[in-house]
Structure formats: C-alpha cells, structure tokens
C-alpha cells in the first residue's frame, strides 16, 4: 500500500494555492505536512480527498485515484464540526452510515470508541452539553468509526488540554504502529517533530523542504550548544568564539559555527576540564524543526523581498 501524490496543482483565480506538489508515503506511519497558515496544507488534503477539483497532477492510493480506489479514509478537518443539537450516539451512527457501515455496525463501533475514549456516559447527551475536549473526542470518533486505512488529521492537537493531548498522542502512536497511513497537517513544529518520520514543508503552495526528518536535521549538523555550569564556563565559551543566543533556567545556549563545530566544541570541553571546570551540561544539538522552518521560510521571504 502506498500514497503517491504527483504534480498536484490548484489555482484560485490568479493565486496558485498549491504548486506542483509531489510526495509519497510508502509505509504506514505518520507523514507531516507543515507550513504557515495559508501555505496550502488544507487545500492539498482537500484535493487528495476529491473535495476540490485538481487543476493538474494526481493523488493515487495503490495506483488508483484516492477517491475512487475504494480505500477507507478518514478526515478530521481543522475546524471542528459536529451537530450541536443532536445526541452523540445518533450523530456518530449517521457518520458511520455515510461511511458505508450498517446502522447496527455503526452503533456498535461508536459505542466501542465512546468507551475507549472515556465518554460512554454521554451517549444520549446532545453534543452542545459536552465540554470542548469531549466534543473533540466525538469529532475524532466520527473520523475513526469506520476503521480507515488512510487518515488525514488537520491540526489535531489544537485546543486540546494536556490530558486529551496525551490521549490523542497515544491513539496516534497506536494507529501508526497498527499499519495506518496518517497524514498530519500542522503548523506546530513540536507536534510534527514528535510523530513524523517524513515531512513536506509547504510555503505559499510550494514544497520548500521534503524528506526524512532525521536526515534533514542531520544534514544541518550540530548548530547549538547547551551549556550549564559555573559563570567561568560561559566566559570560556564566549572567549572561544561562540555567540551566546540566550540564557535559560537550565543554562545558556550558544550558536555553533557552520564549519568545524564538533572540533571546536571538543577543544572547548578539554580547556574547561583542564581548568578544573566541570560543566553540569554540555549538549550538542541539531537544529529543531522550528528553527529549520524559520530559516527556510525567512530565507524564502528574503528571496521574495530581494526579487521585489
């Protein structure tokens, strides 16, 4: 099984919302679509799901167009929508029926999910009486009720409290481990970094960065040093040519040069040890996805500005 998107393009008038986007997902897991608001993430998902007509390109599941391939797919849109005046079980059964389940089968699946997510007691309650977190659980159940193979989650964690975040987190891990193909769209980089093996970074409809997240980060090398220790250790780092970026409760963060960063850090640590200064923390790190994102998008904006 595989999802292949190639040359996907969508225009709204003169505005190109998605420009020749291609990516593929060959194995089960979580794929990240990241980008700022308006980058084209939701439009991409809508085109893949045949909710919007495609101007050029195609999206295929096992070689067939997604919408006609018979794949069971689920979609949780960014804007949550449930029937507020309708009882929870009734609307879940309705969603299940729309997704091809029989009435009894849908009721059985809905009840199982309600129990699983700890909201079984709200089965006969109208949705508007539920808390926001529980409403989101109902929305999630409506997405999962028919056991989809291919899942699209658009900003699934937005507005969740820590307990529900953990619940959704466990569920996402379970789905990835259970052979589901999950496309996660988000502008929260920490979320994507936590779940996604592969990503596409979208900006103004174009893919700025694509591929395996570990390899992308490894390509940047070590760019940061987190140091915690006596004040002399910080002074020694500054004297050694490092730029202090910020001071945090757990130490100070220094920027490393692009060239020979590892050798420079090795020499710095040796000097500290020779001077009898044992740092509590001496951590070399790759850039975070957030930093890569900022760099890429800012670079693109710079190009745009220069071109202008």
């Amino acid at each position, binding site marked *: 099984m595989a999802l292949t998107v190639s040359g996907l393009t969508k225009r709204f*008038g003169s505005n190109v919302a998605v420009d020749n986007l291609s990516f593929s997902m060959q194995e089960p897991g979580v794929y990240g679509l990241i980008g700022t608001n308006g980058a084209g993430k939701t439009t991409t998902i809508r085109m893949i799901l045949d909710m919007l*007509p495609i101007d050029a390109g195609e999206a295929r599941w096992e070689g067939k167009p997604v919408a006609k391939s018979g794949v069971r797919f689920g979609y949780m*849109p960014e804007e949550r929508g449930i029937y507020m005046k309708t009882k929870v079980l009734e609307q879940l059964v309705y969603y299940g029926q*729309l997704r091809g389940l029989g009435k009894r089968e849908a009721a059985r699946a809905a009840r199982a999910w309600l129990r699983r997510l700890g909201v079984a007691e709200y089965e006969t309650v109208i949705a508007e009486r539920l808390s926001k977190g529980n409403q989101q659980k109902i929305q999630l159940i409506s997405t999962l009720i028919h056991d989809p193979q291919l899942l699209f989650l658009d900003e699934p964690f937005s507005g969740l409290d820590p307990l529900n975040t953990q619940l959704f987190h466990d569920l996402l891990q379970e789905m990835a481990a259970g052979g589901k193909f999950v496309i996660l769209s988000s502008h929260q980089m920490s979320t994507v970094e936590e779940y996604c093996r592969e990503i596409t970074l979208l900006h103004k409809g174009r893919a700025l960065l694509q591929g395996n997240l570990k390899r992308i980060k490894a390509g940047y090398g070590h760019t940061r040093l987190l140091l915690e220790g006596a004040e002399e250790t910080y002074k020694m780092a500054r004297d050694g040519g490092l730029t202090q970026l910020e001071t945090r409760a757990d130490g100070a963060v220094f920027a490393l040069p692009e060239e020979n960063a590892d050798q420079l850090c090795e020499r710095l640590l040796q000097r500290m040890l020779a001077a009898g200064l044992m740092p509590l923390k001496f951590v070399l790190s790759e850039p975070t996805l957030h930093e890569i994102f900022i760099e890429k998008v800012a670079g693109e904006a710079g190009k745009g500005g220069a071109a202008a």
Partner: protein
Amino acid sequence: MKQQRKQIMAVAGFTFREAVRRKSFWVTNGIFFLLILAACIILPQMGGSGGAGPGEEALEGGAAPDAGYTCYLINDSAVLSDAGDVLAQRLEFDVRPVDAAQKAEILGKIRADGQVLLLELGAEQPPEVTITTKDFMSAAPTDAIWQAMANLYRVHAFAQLGYDAAQSEAIVQTQLPLAQEFAGGTNVSNYAAGMALMLMMFLTIYIHGYGVAMSVATEKSTRVMETLIVSAKPTRILLGKCIGMGLVGLSQMLGVLLFSTACAKLLVPPGGFGPGIALPSMTFVRAVLLVVYFLLGYALFSMINSMCGAMVSKMEDLQSAMMPASMVSVFSFYGGYFAMGVGPAVYSAGSVGKLMMYIPFTAPYAAPGILLGGDYTPGLVAASIGGMIVAIVLVAWISSKVYAASVLHYGGRLKFGEVRKLIKG
C-alpha cells in the same frame, strides 16, 4: 449504486428525524390543528343555520335582513317625496330627513358609526341616487336602497301614465324565482377547499424549503459540511436533505388534511358551514395529482433554497441570500392566488388559470383550484407536470453545481458572479 442510495437515504433519514424533533415543527402542527378545530366548532355556529336563507325569513314576516340602519335623507326629488316612508317600511330604517347644510355633520356621524348612512335624491328626472356609507368595506345594503328607490320611481311613473297605483306596485315588486346552476365543477365548496389547499401548499413548501436552506447553512457554518462531503458526494447530500425535508412537509400536510377531514366529518353537521357548502370533490386521482404537485413544487423550491444556503458561511447572511428565492416563492403564490381569485370566470376560458399551470413556479399553487374545480384536461396536467419536471432537472443541475462549488467556501456571502467562477474553476 447501492452505496449511493444508502448514503442518500441516510442523509434523508437523519434530516427527517432532526426536523421532526424540533419544537417549531410541533408548534406549527399544533397551530394548524387548533385553527382547524376552531373553524369546525365556531363556523357552524356563525353561519350554518342549515335552514332558511336570508330572503325566506323576511317573506315570513320576520325582521328585514337590512334593518337597524340610521338613514339620513336629503331629498330634493319631487317625484320621490315619499322615499322616507318606503325606507322606513320596507327596509325598517330609522329615517331622518335633513338639509343639505347639515351634510358635513352627517358625514362625521357616518365616519364614527358603520350603521349610519346618508341617502341623497337629486332634483332631476329621473333623480340621481347618491348613497354615502362609512367605507368600501361597509356592509350597508346599498343595492337594496337603490332598488327600492328605482321601484318607487317606476310606481310613480306608471301612476302618471294612468295605471292603478296598487297594481303598478304589485308588478314592480314582483320577484322572479331564480335557480342558479353550474355546468363546471368550481362550486363554492371546491373553491374554498382549493383556496385552503393552495395556502397549505404554499406554507408547507415555503417553510420546509426554507428548512433546507437553514439546514445547509447550519452545516456549513458549524463546519459539519467538511466532515460530510468527505464521506458522500455533495449531490447525494443535497438530494438526501431535500428528500428528508420533503417527507417532513408531506407528512405534515397529509396529517393536517386527515385531521381536517376527521373534524369535518365528526364535528360539523350536514350543511353546517351554510347552505350550498358540501365536502369538496376530492377523488383519488385528484388527491394523487395534488400530492404530485406538492412534491414537484417542493423539489423545485427546495433545490433553489439549498443553493442559497450553500452560498453563506454565517447564519446571519442567510436572510439576504434567500431574498431572491423568497421573492420568486411569494410571487408564485400570488400567481396561483390570482388564478384562483379570477378563476371561476376564466378557468373554462382557459386564460389565467391555464397560464399559471404552465409556469413551473406557479403551477403547484394554481393546481388545487383547477384540479378540485375539475375544469382541466389530461393534456393540461401532463404539460404542466412535464414543464415542472424539466424545470426541476434544470434547477437541480444548477443547484448541485453551485452547492458543490460553494459548500467549502468560507468568508463573506458569495455573489452570483463568484459562484459562476467557482463552478468554472
């Protein structure tokens, strides 16, 4: 195909349950039922004596039907000098002769009291008769007064020619027995039932058609739509929604009709609504045709309304988006009403009524009167229904395009030009 049907029926079933669960549905039904019950209890008390007509009572020596008026009289006619006596005796008016100088004061009294009127008889030959009543809705018996003055004039004219006064009066007052019969089917019962059905048809189509627009707009504004159209094609959702609301409307209409029939049978004695009024000529074929017209009319207007609902993102924009559709709906109703209003005179001539039957938007409202009146041909009905089906197919095609293109558009209300671009894009 099976999956399509299942999805359409799932949407229809859900829409139906949602609609009948609403309080407004039961409140509307309650109001309808109360009105019917009140009509069946009160109207027979008011008008349905079931006995003699108004003329018969007067002949038997009871009070004249037009008695009780105060009639101020400005009489400049030499010939009709005894006009006051005639009015007092025949019509049992309280007649008060006055001068022309008092006219302004009299007009004030007439404006204050509908039971007061002014009769002016001119000096010319024959005298001009001027009657002043409160307003055009006044029930004052102007025809009876005018007739009495004309008869009095004729009696005096005969007397001048030398005829015996008593004989002249007897001849002049002679009434010929009158029996009016109708070759067509538009009698008063069918006419009244046609009016009631037309109103019922309009209310049901309008209310439940609006319900479709509300339902679409709500799903769009609450973002449920995105979850729906990922599972089913927009056209299936649209179709299911229209079917669901249509079933609500149909069950409501049939419920009201059954309740009306039961009340009429159980609570109203024969002739209880007055002489000449019986149950309308409802045959099985006519009943089926009426249901067909309702379904087609509902389909036509609900498709248009769903398009309006899909064009808004916020509920507060729905009213303005619905304005053109509401105007079409209301004008169509008035088209049907106009056909009914002038109907008995022109149905058989085939002008207004037939024209309204040929126009798809007015046909469902013109149909009750024409079908119950029986003045139709199979050709007229076939052409009318055929026209409606063509219109529905056309409107459904446009609506599904607009619906599919608009349901994912958020922001301001879409203008028709923007919708056209979305459909093309």
